């Protein structure tokens, strides 16, 4: 299938600092793409570039195969974005929701469209007459989302849509977003710290770190600091006195990742070059992408995910609360910088 949006060789700089470096990224039509990564990893920058609200320093962006530039053209009318801190115009809720429709000179029944938008985000029609300052944080966020939904965008980009709202608003926002996809086949790109939600709804997850896309994932994120250990290895201490071993980091405060697939349950012996970790099982669940049971464990305060296949006996030994021994190879730790 032809991707709806295709990024090629995109680099973006803020002054001298490289904020984003994406050699290639495809967003398929009608898909839900999740963006994960710590603060400052480039999620918002990527969203703004996808939303045509910022022109990347170099590289091309194609929408349905046609190169497009920021701020201009028909494409920017089909792609819309809900920023992390949306701004409500100093007007009524009605005028806020109708703003985008008016820009597009959409005739027809504005009033009905606004009413529909309010209903989508679970707000009473009486909200239309309220002024911008008469809304709670959650209501304001929902009004901002309604202003995007009424445009029936081909692609909706959301930057932390539920980060700063109450539980009820968060649920209503999640429902409204999924409703848009079901009804109109809207392509969704969502940046969020809410990993379990992303995990639940996304077709693809993209992990960003320092502006780069990670090959694997951000599970098993290992923060520093690292100190030299025996035989050329480096170690990071865990709270229960154990230590994690890894190869030589570029800096003592580098961050590493241990891919879930490189951890296995120890049955019997430790193989040549492997290290041991004693952990407590937190949960056992079915991994959406692996379609296999996976483990979530805690090793001296460090959460880890294990996704190597488990047999029946092993599953039995891994009931939550049990202690298990995991083995890994220090050279499998991937450095993020």
């Amino acid at each position, binding site marked *: 299938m032809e991707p709806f949006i295709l990024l090629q060789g995109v680099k973006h700089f803020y002054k001298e600092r490289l904020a984003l470096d994406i050699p290639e990224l495809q967003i398929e039509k009608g898909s839900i793409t999740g963006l994960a990564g710590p603060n400052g990893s480039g999620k918002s920058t990527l969203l703004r570039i996808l939303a045509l609200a910022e022109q990347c320093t170099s590289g091309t962006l194609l929408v349905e195969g046609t190169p497009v530039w920021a701020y201009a053209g028909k494409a920017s009318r089909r792609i819309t974005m*809900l920023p992390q801190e949306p701004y409500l*115009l100093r007007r009524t809720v009605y005028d806020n929701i109708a703003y985008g429709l008016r820009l597009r000179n959409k005739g027809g029944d504005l009033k009905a469209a606004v009413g529909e938008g309010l209903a989508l985000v679970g707000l009473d029609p009486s909200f239309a007459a309220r002024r911008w300052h008469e809304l709670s944080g959650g209501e304001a966020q929902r009004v901002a989302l309604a202003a995007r939904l009424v445009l029936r965008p081909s692609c909706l980009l959301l930057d932390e849509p539920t980060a700063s709202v109450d539980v009820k608003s968060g649920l209503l926002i999640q429902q409204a977003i999924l409703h848009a996809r079901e009804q109109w086949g809207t392509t969704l790109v969502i940046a969020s710290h809410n990993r379990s939600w992303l995990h639940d709804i996304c077709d693809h997850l993209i992990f960003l770190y320092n502006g780069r896309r990670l090959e694997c994932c951000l599970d098993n994120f290992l923060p520093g600091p690292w100190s030299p250990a025996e035989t050329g290895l480096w170690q990071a201490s865990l709270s229960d006195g154990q230590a994690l071993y890894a190869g030589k980091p570029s800096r003592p405060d580098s961050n590493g990742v241990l891919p879930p697939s490189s951890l296995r349950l120890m049955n019997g012996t430790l193989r040549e070059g492997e290290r041991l970790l004693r952990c407590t099982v937190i949960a056992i669940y079915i991994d959406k992408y692996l379609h296999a049971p996976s483990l979530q464990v805690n090793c001296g305060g460090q959460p880890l995910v294990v996704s190597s296949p488990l047999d029946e006996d092993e599953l039995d030994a891994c009931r939550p609360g049990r202690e298990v021994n995991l083995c890994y190879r220090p050279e499998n730790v991937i450095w993020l910088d």
Partner: protein
Amino acid sequence: MDFILQGVAQAIVLLASGDWETYSAVFATVQVSGLSMGASLLIGIPLGYLLGYLDFPGKKPLRTVVDTLLSLPTVFIGLVVYAFLSYRGPFGELSLLFTLTGIAIGQTILALPVVISLTATAVESLDRHLRLTLVSLGASPRQIFLTSLWEARLGLLIAAVTATGRVLTEVGISMMVGGNIKWQTRTITTAIALETNKGQFATGIALGLVLLALAFAINVSLSFLRRRG
């Protein structure tokens, strides 16, 4: 003390009886400040918007220059405009010296830095999320411009009122460029200067009262709009 009270009493009689000479100066003032405010808002708001909205090298020094021009003395503007409009000056053929248009040109120069600087400040103090929101909703640069101005409407209003206050009360430009010609370019302020010279306090006080009333009306409407804003 007596003659001051007498002056006030006479002033009220003058105003109430519709003294044509007094009202001629009032009309000239309204006409010329309307002209100069229209021109300075038309030129100053877009320039102020660009100054506040865009980031470009040399922006800070430029703002400093504009802010310095805020305190441009009216007599200096009067002198320069006079020199340019004089029959020996580069624009002498236009015959604008000693006309209301000539005064309006000078007052526009007086008001422009005020409008530009305060507009830039208003635009700068707009929420930094506004632009992203508008872009993400598909607004064109022109639509961003118009919506941003509307969002900054209170700041623009303050700019307009402040500039009007300066224009309404200045005497240097009106006197030098306008020449204080009776029935033609005599404005409230130049008339007051003249009446005081002639020892005619009543007319001076009457005109001063009108000026006060104008300033008061503008400020009241401003605070009303601010409350509504």
